[in-house]
């Protein structure tokens, strides 16, 4: 039977921040909250600091060439979020690949983009973070 649930918020009964979802193989359950992306963004930082799209992101700051800080709207519970980032530049194809990223606080992550020689360089970049929200 097809079904539809209309709701604005989901909250666990036993633990507010924990809802189990049955996995695709129909036998294992996974935690809904912990599996969700909590912070992501796609930025044109090569020629400007344009936010093309984002989620739970308040702002981006251009600190220097190839060095950026992004601020999360809703804070994480700790600084140990799992963050990955990819970079690219249409004007300089050497500035591509991965970027070093780390959360310096529960609301701010810094990114360092560089060319293959290790020199800092501006690039477009996208990132995705999983972790625990406060």
């Amino acid at each position, binding site marked *: 039977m*097809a*079904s*539809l*649930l*209309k*709701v*604005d918020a989901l909250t666990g*009964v*036993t633990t507010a921040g924990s809802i189990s*979802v*049955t*996995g*695709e*193989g129909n*036998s*294992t359950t*996974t*935690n*809904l909250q*912990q*599996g*969700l*992306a909590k912070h992501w963004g796609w930025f044109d930082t090569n020629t400007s600091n344009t936010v093309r799209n984002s989620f739970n992101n308040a702002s981006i700051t251009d600190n220097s060439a*190839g*060095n950026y800080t992004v601020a999360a709207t809703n804070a994480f519970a*700790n600084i*140990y*979020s*799992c*963050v*990955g*980032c990819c970079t690219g530049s249409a004007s300089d194809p050497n500035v591509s*690949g*991965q*970027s*070093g*990223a*780390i959360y310096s606080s529960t609301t701010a992550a810094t990114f*360092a983009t*560089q*060319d*293959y*020689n*290790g*020199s*800092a360089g501006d690039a477009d970049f996208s*990132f*995705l973070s*999983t*972790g*625990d929200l406060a």
Partner: protein
Amino acid sequence: MASELRVNTLKDAAGNNSIATSFVAGGSAKAWSNYSGSGTTFRDSFNCASAVDNGTGDYSVNYTSSLVNDDYSVSVGIRLDSGANPAYNSRSVELKTFATGSIRYVGQVGGGSAGDYDHTCPQIHGDLA
């Protein structure tokens, strides 16, 4: 009181922003972790049982609940905190072995040599068993 809700689609109360529950399950990360490449202790993690240091820059992460097959998506973020020009060292990751219960990968510094990192962050998307 524990409860179970079986539903195919979720919408907000206004009837907008519809999403199938299959997208909720399929689109969620099934495992992630944050740990130092010089050790194997998780700073934080989800569905990760343990990390194994196989050698310089060579790591395996074992899952608590396995994936249904080894055809899943992996992205790994890595970063150095110290060393020569640490913020800008070129980085790449070689994905070596996909298994339903683990992933093995090698972090590389510029020039392709293996290196240990201060932060390694694998994220797994796929189907749970």
